Every structure is written in structure tokens, then in C-alpha cells.
């Protein structure tokens, strides 16, 4: 009788699937040839640029929206929607805006749009997700005339341009007010080279060239973003020519794509990986000599070469190459286990000590954290430091990090690799201070973060890096290279130094 029941069960299921199957309709095939198709590991999250904190989502938003300025590969800020700017006094910036620019719906771009945008981001009631730094720093925005704008900050804030570059997508006030925030998040409308057409979740986002774009007609009539979660599938789609660009190529597939008939690989500056040390509660780690010893004990160059297949750049401290004040003459700690042992002996830990290292496997897509963790543990055991590895799930790690439950922990910092926020957030005691609090570091970071004079800021950056390198609040590891696979038929001349793609940088070849 059970069998008969199963027959009925199946019939019911098939009947249930009939409406399902008819609701399923093929999407129109993309116009061949003149489409730029890019594939990333995750789907976009939202089309409201101010509610977004996700890097992949940014890859679509950056084609639709523009900011006042953009940071170029030369490390300088270039005008985009702003024409020029000047620092009026320590807390006041004046921006001259470009004339004759229209949003995709025909609305004129003026200072009102800039004011509307920045006020929305700085609003404490609405709590835009990309707004924290605007809320903390912007005091007032003033429209002087339709093309002149004053931005007043609460304190001297030299990172304003970096913030505008990272998170200040300019939105059209009249359109926003007429459609409301829900529809605005579904039907975005910017000044960028591509206008929004459609988004089918987990399938694709389709954009169409904005023929009136001020920078000239885009090279591709269509821009398609596809989320393909599995890396092997992304590689297959690239090799086969279904897509023109595949992000996040795993290190072990790089050679194959480099030697491929139709493919090549480029790498971009990615996130920083370090091992944080609890310098407050873990007795041995309170001693600077112990922290220096740990840095000397780990052969980071060998990890980069052998574990990561060379897809990373070793770092000497918590700053990124390209940041204002980054000093390339400060060298990373040399691999020197003997010196590490001497430092441990000096600090009174000749016999070593026990410590736990938490490894959030897959955290922010970080490469091979488990392998790196195991290698670090084995290096440290050679100088007598016994590391117990604790593999944890990334979301749980964020919580435990904040609850100050770590002794040693992997951490990744990406997205903003240009401003001084990495120092301010991670190492300034008044922002987090969970695992490291140092009056000297606070003074160095505060001075760096408030110096409006570029030359002075440069000097203060070098001083901060020098101090933090020596004080070793982390085991400094490396900056990942974000590896991107490209079709050979695609020429790419990147304007920016980080992972953010601009469609205008691409053309067929």
C-alpha cells in the first residue's frame, strides 16, 4: 500500500510543478559581440548605493553612479563630477561642479544633488549603511550657487576626498523624491556611463550604454553582471568565452589561464590579512619584545610563495602601499628564528608559552586561511610558542572579535585601502581598542588623521607606520592580490588602483 501512496505523491508533485514550469521563461539572449559580461562570486545586494557595503555590488553601482572625485593609479584624486576643489580652512572644503551633466532620467546635476546626497548619508535618523563616516565627520553642506558647494566637517578631516571616492555616489533629488526609496533601490538613476535595465536575482544585472555620457559613448552597448558562485565554473565560462571577465580566480588556476589561448590574468590590489594579537589580556603578548619575536619567527615570504602561489604582497605594517605616508623604506620583519628566541628569552619566555589562534575559514573570501594558519602555527612552534588552532565560522568570528574573546586571530581589511581609516578603526584606542591600546599609537594616528597639509600628513604617516611596525600589535602578513581572469579580446586600462572596475576602462581588441 505504501507503493500506491508513492504513486499518488509523485502525481501530486508533478501537477504542482506544471505552473512552476510555465512560469519559467527564457530570458532574451544577450546581443552577441557588443556586450561586456563580467562574473563575480556573489550577486549584488541592492541598487541603492547608500545602503551598500558590499564590494561586488559596487561593481554594478560604479557603472551607474558617479562620485565627485576618483582616486587614480597615480595616487592622486581626479575630478569626476567635481571640476575642482580647494581647502578653504581646516574644516571647510569648496567644490566647483561640472556643468551640463544630466542624470539618466534627464534631471540636471547641480549642487542640490550633492547636498541631497551628502545630507542623506550623514543623516542620523535614516542610518544609511554606507554612512558611518559621513555621520561622524560631516557637519554641514552649503549650496553657494548651483555649481558651487561647501562641505564643512566637524573636525579637520583630510580623508574627505577618500570618503567621497569610496562611498559618495551622487543621486538625483527630484527623482528620488518622486519615486520613493523602495523604488529608487530597484530602479537606480545616476550620471554614469551605463543606465539600468534589469536585475534578475542570482541570474544577471543588465545595463545599457548611456549615449549622452560626458566621457563619450561607452565602448560596449551592454554591460552584464553575472553571479557565478563556484570558481571552477567561472573559469570554465571564461575559457569558453561566455564571459569576458571572471573575478576571484583561485591561485591554482592562474597558470592555466595565463597560458590559455583566449585568456589572460591580471591582478589588483586586494585586502590586507594580518594576525591580531590580544595585547591587553594575554600576558606574554603585552610585551612588545614578544610581539616582535612572533613577527621574526614567521617566514611570511615563504607563505606568500608556497602557500599562496605568489598571489600576495608582503606588508611591513598596517598601511597599504599607495596610502598617503606609506613608507617603502620600512622593511618587513626579517625571518630570523634565532633572533625571535633571543627576544623571547629577554622577555622571560625562554620556554615559550601557549596561545590560541582563531581562524575564520573563508572570512571575506580570504585565500587559504586554514593553510596559512597551520603554517604560522608550525613556524611559531619552532621558537617554543605552542599555537592551538581554532577553526571558526566567519560570522561567529565577527561576534567573538567584538566580544574581545580572541587571543590571536586572523583579520582582513579590504575595500578602503586608500584612506587612514584602517589605522583609525583598528588601532586607535577610542574607536575599537579591543585588543590594543597605546597612548603613543593614539597620538601618532590622531596627528596623521587630522593633518590637512599634505606634506605634513605624509611625514606623520611615515612616523605612524614606523611606530606601529616596531610596536607590532599584529603579526603583519600580506596584502592579497585580487586575481581577475580576462578574455584576450578585452583590453583593460585601469584608472584606479584597487579592485573597483569602471566599464569605461574596457574596450575590445
Amino acid at each position: 500500500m505504501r507503493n500506491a501512496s508513492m504513486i499518488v505523491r509523485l502525481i501530486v508533485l508533478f501537477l504542482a510543478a506544471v505552473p512552476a514550469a510555465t512560469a519559467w521563461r527564457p530570458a532574451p539572449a544577450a546581443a552577441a559581440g557588443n556586450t561586456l559580461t563580467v562574473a563575480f562570486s556573489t550577486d549584488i545586494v541592492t541598487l541603492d548605493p547608500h545602503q551598500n557595503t558590499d564590494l561586488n555590488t559596487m561593481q554594478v553601482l560604479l557603472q551607474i553612479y558617479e562620485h565627485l572625485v576618483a582616486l587614480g593609479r597615480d595616487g592622486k584624486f581626479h575630478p569626476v563630477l567635481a571640476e575642482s576643489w580647494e581647502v578653504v580652512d581646516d574644516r571647510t572644503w569648496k567644490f566647483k561642479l561640472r556643468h551640463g551633466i544630466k542624470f539618466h532620467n534627464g534631471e540636471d546635476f547641480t549642487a542640490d544633488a550633492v547636498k541631497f546626497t551628502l545630507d542623506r548619508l550623514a543623516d542620523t535618523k535614516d542610518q544609511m549603511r554606507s554612512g558611518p563616516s559621513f555621520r561622524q565627520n560631516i557637519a554641514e553642506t552649503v549650496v553657494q550657487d548651483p555649481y558651487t558647494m561647501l562641505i564643512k566637517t566637524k573636525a579637520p578631516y583630510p580623508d574627505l576626498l577618500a570618503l567621497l571616492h569610496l562611498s559618495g555616489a551622487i543621486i538625483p533629488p527630484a527623482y528620488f523624491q518622486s519615486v520613493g526609496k523602495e523604488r529608487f533601490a530597484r530602479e537606480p538613476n545616476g550620471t554614469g556611463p551605463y543606465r539600468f535595465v534589469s536585475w534578475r536575482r542570482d541570474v544577471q544585472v543588465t545595463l545599457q550604454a548611456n549615449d549622452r555620457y560626458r566621457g563619450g559613448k561607452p565602448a560596449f552597448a551592454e554591460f552584464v553582471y553575472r553571479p557565478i558562485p563556484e570558481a571552477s565554473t567561472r573559469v570554465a565560462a571564461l575559457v569558453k568565452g561566455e564571459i569576458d571577465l571572471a573575478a576571484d580566480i583561485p591561485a591554482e588556476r592562474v597558470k592555466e589561464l595565463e597560458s590559455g589561448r583566449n585568456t589572460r590574468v591580471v591582478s589588483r590590489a586586494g585586502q590586507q590579512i594580518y594576525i591580531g594579537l590580544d595585547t591587553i589580556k594575554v600576558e606574554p603578548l603585552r610585551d612588545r619584545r614578544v610581539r616582535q619575536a612572533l613577527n621574526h619567527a614567521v617566514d611570511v615570504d615563504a607563505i606568500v610563495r608556497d602557500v599562496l602561489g605568489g598571489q600576495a604582497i608582503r606588508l611591513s605594517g598596517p598601511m597599504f602601499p599607495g596610502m598617503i605616508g606609506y613608507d617603502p623604506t620600512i622593511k618587513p620583519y626579517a625571518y630570523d628564528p634565532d633572533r625571535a628566541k633571543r627576544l623571547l628569552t629577554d622577555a622571560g619566555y625562554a620556554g615559550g608559552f601557549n596561545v590560541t589562534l582563531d581562524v575564520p575559514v573563508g572570512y571575506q573570501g580570504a585565500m587559504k586561511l586554514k593553510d596559512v594558519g597551520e603554517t604560522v602555527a608550525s613556524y611559531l612552534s619552532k621558537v617554543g610558542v605552542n599555537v592551538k588552532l581554532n577553526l571558526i565560522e566567519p560570522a561567529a568570528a565577527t561576534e567573538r572579535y567584538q566580544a574581545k574573546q580572541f587571543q590571536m586571530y586572523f583579520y582582513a581589511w579590504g575595500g578602503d585601502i586608500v584612506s587612514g581609516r584602517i589605522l583609525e578603526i583598528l588601532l586607535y584606542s577610542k574607536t575599537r581598542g579591543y585588543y590594543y591600546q597605546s597612548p603613543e599609537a593614539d597620538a601618532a594616528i590622531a596627528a596623521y588623521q587630522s593633518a590637512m597639509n599634505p606634506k605634513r600628513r605624509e611625514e606623520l604617516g611615515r612616523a605612524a607606520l614606523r611606530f606601529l611596525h616596531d610596536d607590532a600589535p599584529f603579526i603583519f602578513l600580506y596584502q592579497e592580490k585580487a586575481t581577475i581572469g580576462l578574455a584576450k579580446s578585452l583590453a583593460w586600462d585601469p584608472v584606479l588602483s584597487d579592485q573597483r572596475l569602471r566599464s569605461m576602462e574596457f574596450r575590445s581588441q
Partner: protein
Amino acid sequence: MLPWGYIGRRVAQTALVLVGITLVVFWVVRLSGDPVLLMLPADASQQDIARLREALGFDQPMYVQLQRFVERVARGDFGNSLRFQEPALPLVLERVPSTALLALTALSISTLVAIPLGVLSAARRGSAWDHAAMFAALLGQSMPIFWTGIMLITIFSVALDIFPSSGTGTLRHLVLPAAALGVFSTGRVTRLVRGGMLEALGQDYVRTARAKGLAERRVVYRHALRNSLLPVITIVGLELGSTLGGAVVTEMVFAWPGVGRLIVSAIFARDYPLVQAAVFVVATMFVLVNLVVDIVYAIADPRVRYA
């Protein structure tokens, strides 16, 4: 005359199961970690974190959260997805057709392949055919779907260029994911058909059929197969469960826009409302199918009502 008493009991049981599942999911996702920290950028201050937590109601004690949740769900509202900031339930429902299509196609493929293969193996027991088919079945059962999927893409998409590697849109997009998903159950069903056939072929009625001079073909298909199919149908029904489970992996490998992929990303983002809505929808699908089956079955077979 419908068995109303029985139907009433079953409907009540079903509702109870759904309520139970919903509560368990509510509790489990909250054990798994705090979503607020994942939703804000690195530069968020403590105030930002506290404010968002308050806005989402996560600062309230668990029983208050549960009460609010129950009140909303009673109205069919699972709340907004934390990640997408849109109502969670429609986000899930729009994926159901894709997953149903994939799972049912996979099941159809595996049944259509497995039955002839199993019959052939049993009819020519010990032959090279038999060995080859059993080896293939073993292989199908042993290969993880993840690996099968990558192999299918490598061979049929990249090397032979017959099918697209991933995505959706045309029937050609459906072939590889459905095949990858179907391979596993194909192996199991083939072995079962073969076993059932071997048993049937040893029965007296088969010997009688042969003795009266029927063609072997007729003996195998008319007499033995029909009798050995009943347990197979049971298994195929059970396979539907594991197929829906395997759909999660298949959807990831082939970038198929189904419920499984949505659940995985929702879990990683600690998107409580979305996880809750998705589990509720999947559970409802199963439970409702079972309910309808049981009711129809009770109508067809009165003995069940009193069981």
C-alpha cells in the same frame, strides 16, 4: 463520502508540524551569530551598531522577539530580508519554480535512465552489460554532485561546447545541472530495479510464462518488470527528498537561481528573516504534498483512516 474526521486530524497535524518547524528555525538561527556586525561597514561606530540592533529589534529579549515574530508570521509577513532590505517571503517564492523544475527534471532523467538499465542488467545477468551497468551505477552513487557537476561542465561545455556552462534562460541551460543532480539517484534506482527484476525473474509465474512459450521479451517486460516496479516507485518518491537536498550544491555549481542557493547565501549573511522564510517555504512544500497524498490515499483505501 469523504473521511472528514481523518482529514481534519491530518490538517491539524500538518499545521502543528509547520508551527514546530518555524519555531525551531527561529531559535536555531539566533543561536548562530549576530547579523548586525555583518551588515555594517568596518568604520561603523559602537553607536551605529547599537542603533541598527535596536532598529531591527535584536536588542529585545528573545521572548519579545519571538512574540513579534509570531504576530507577524500569523499575518503572512516574515519581515524584511536584512541583506536585501525587501520582504523575505516573495524573495523565496520567486525561486521555487526554478528549484522545482531542476529537481523534477533530474528525477525524470534518473528514472528514465535507471529502469531500462536495471532491466537490461537483470535480464543479462553476469554479462559484460551487467557488469558495465553496475559499475556505472556504483560510480554514480560514489561521485559527489559537486565533482560530477564540474566534470560535466569540463566535458560537455568547455571541451565539446554542446551546453552552456552555467546560468539559466533556455532548456539547454537545464541539461547539465539536471544531469548532475540526476546521476546520484540514477545509480541507486538502477541497482534497485536490477534487484527487483532478479527476484521477479526467479518467481514461479515467470517460469510458467516461459514454459507456455512466451517470447523472452514479453516475459521480461510484461510479467517481471511490472511486478518489480512497485518498490522502485517507493524509492523514486523518497529520492525526491535527497534530490531537493542535492539541488543546493547543484545550484551553486551551475549558478542556478533556486531556493537552495538563496538559503546558503542567507545563512552566511545571518539573514534571519530570509532563512526563516526559506525554511518555512521548503517545509510547507513537503508537508503539503504529504498531506494531499495521505488524504487522497485515505479516500482510495478506507483501511488507512483507522490506522
